[in-house]
């Protein structure tokens, strides 16, 4: 299991909800720093999010959202702790993402120290169909660049913290 996870949520037959699927497809063969980062698509919510993020160090969730605070295709980036519920980060029968994170911590599971969300403002998430609306489809290239940049940034952060931990361990060893 790789420490950095890009978790793409959505539904590939539900118009703009296919956004996450498209991001996952595009990144599958071109994931930066693939030695430490991986991309997964999952049509899940609730407990499944907890189970998929467990034992990861950094996680980025890709999803759709309807905030009406911008035109369709607008990208919203926010840490999960400041969650505006996006379309798959909640579940009618389970738990939402903040509860999942809290539950993971309560149970002593190793949860990511960074959980961010990149969500696109969707126009249509109620019509079954395999085509996204043009505005959302046009947002895919920029979203891909932002995801790649996020992976690069988190990879550097991860390496710094790993080296720091190694240095601390070495120091501790010398002192003892």
């Amino acid at each position, binding site marked *: 299991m790789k420490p950095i996870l890009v978790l793409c949520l959505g539904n590939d037959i539900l118009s703009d909800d296919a956004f996450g699927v498209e991001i996952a497809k595009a990144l599958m063969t071109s994931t930066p720093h693939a030695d430490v980062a991986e991309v997964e698509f999952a049509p899940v919510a609730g407990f499944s999010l907890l189970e998929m993020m467990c034992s990861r160090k950094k996680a980025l969730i890709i999803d759709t959202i309807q905030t009406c605070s911008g035109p369709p295709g607008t990208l919203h980036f926010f840490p999960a702790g400041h969650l505006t519920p996006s379309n798959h980060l909640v*579940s009618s029968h389970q738990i939402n993402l903040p509860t999942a994170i809290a*539950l993971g911590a309560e149970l002593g599971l190793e949860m990511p120290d960074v959980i961010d969300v990149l969500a696109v403002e969707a126009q249509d998430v*109620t019509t079954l169909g395999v085509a996204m609306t043009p505005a959302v489809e046009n947002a895919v290239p920029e979203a891909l660049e932002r995801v790649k940049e996020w992976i690069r940034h988190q990879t550097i952060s991860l390496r710094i913290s790993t080296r720091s931990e190694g240095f601390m361990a070495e120091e501790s060893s010398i002192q003892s």
Partner: protein
Amino acid sequence: MREIVIDPITRLEGHGKIHLFINDDGSLANCYFQVPELRGFEKFCQGRPVEELPRITTRICGVCPDAHHLASAKAADAVYGVTIPSAAFKLRELQYNAFFAGDHTTHFYALGGPDFVCGPDAPKAERNILGVIAKVGLDAGKKVIAQRARGQRVIEIIGGKKVHPVTALPGGMSKRISKEEQQEMIIIGDQMVEFAKFTIQVFNDIVLANKAYVDLILSDMYAHKTYNMGLVDENNKVNFYDGKVRVVGPDGKEHAKYAPKDYLEFVAEHVEPYTYLKYPFLKKIGWKGFVDGVESGVYKASPLSRLNVSDGMATPLAQAEYERFYETLTGDRSGHTMVHSTLATHWARIVELVFACESVARQARDEEIISDHVLEPPTSIVGEGVGIVEAPRGTLTHHYKTDQKGFVTEVNLIVGTTNNNAPISMSIKKAAEGLVKKGTEITDGVLNRIEMAFRAYDPCFGCATHSIVGEMPLEVYLHDAVSQEVLQVTRRNC
């Protein structure tokens, strides 16, 4: 008159809206329940090979993909007029029981259970699984996570994927399982049974030991005397995967027992102008409005309904729990006296959880499941088929028509929650009538007790409206009953 509306806070799939119309004196004048609809499902399916539908229909509900996968596969079997091999039947049933074991676990500990474990008047922030863990113990949380993982592992072994199974297809299964995988599932089944026993104990200690909770379950405010529907096996025992649909009246008398292909003779759908979601009713009784009784065609299809239409459970521990359930609530352990208390659905769900776990343990030991013969390729076509399974939320019907090459021409679904649309509306109204009185302050506790009336059904409106999964975000709109003016909006997630 004022109106309170409970409405979604986002577009989220699965959202519903409740309008409460309040008279000037604070009493309830009327109550409506609405849900939105996902568009184009039938059109999306038309022209596609019917063998694609078992994989496509898993996409319409993120909560019950297994239910749709198998109902769809059964309908596709019928379209081709093929009888699947015995081993394939057993694998599907085993996988489905594992799915039920996981789903009912999740519901009790994360959704329905908090109302009882934490209490209906507990602060909303505590009324969730974290509150349950705080009361039951950290170990319970770990057990829930482990139980879910067990169910997913069985689904992965048989269904090919943890979340959206893909292996059921017309004629049987596309994947065989190995002896090693069987051994793993035997161990999982035994562990599931231990978890079921643990859950029985939790329910005993926290719910049944609290007289106030038992009184709440039995209170008239949460009771409706309607018909009940559910699948039963040849001995009238509860079965989730196969059998005949049995319908029993509020008086306990059998109204109908029919094969899935005949469902249109028994079920029709009523439409109301304020909602897209239809109201199925019993055709031979007729639609008489949102009313109880043997003269009303309203029926429920839920865990409680399944127990009510059955003569018991096919596994020993579940049968013992079934008898205890009826003895406690009716004084008649035979189960022939109906339980009409909506909140008893939570307990019925636990009886079913026990049955699902025992079934996994038993069926995993069947040597036939490792047979090589799991697929009988279709050689002819009928062109029409109906598949019915019990989804955790109620009877799930898939009905397909195809041309002679197997391309879909018509699709009709009646999903679990749709069956319960009328009873849910009635339950909300009755609870609201009981709680919203002259001068009542609409507090969070009042709203929660109204929501408990429909939460017991574990409704999945995302699924019912052909959408996928979402939280149950609601807005409570308070309207003046005369001017219709919105006086108050309360945003909620429940």
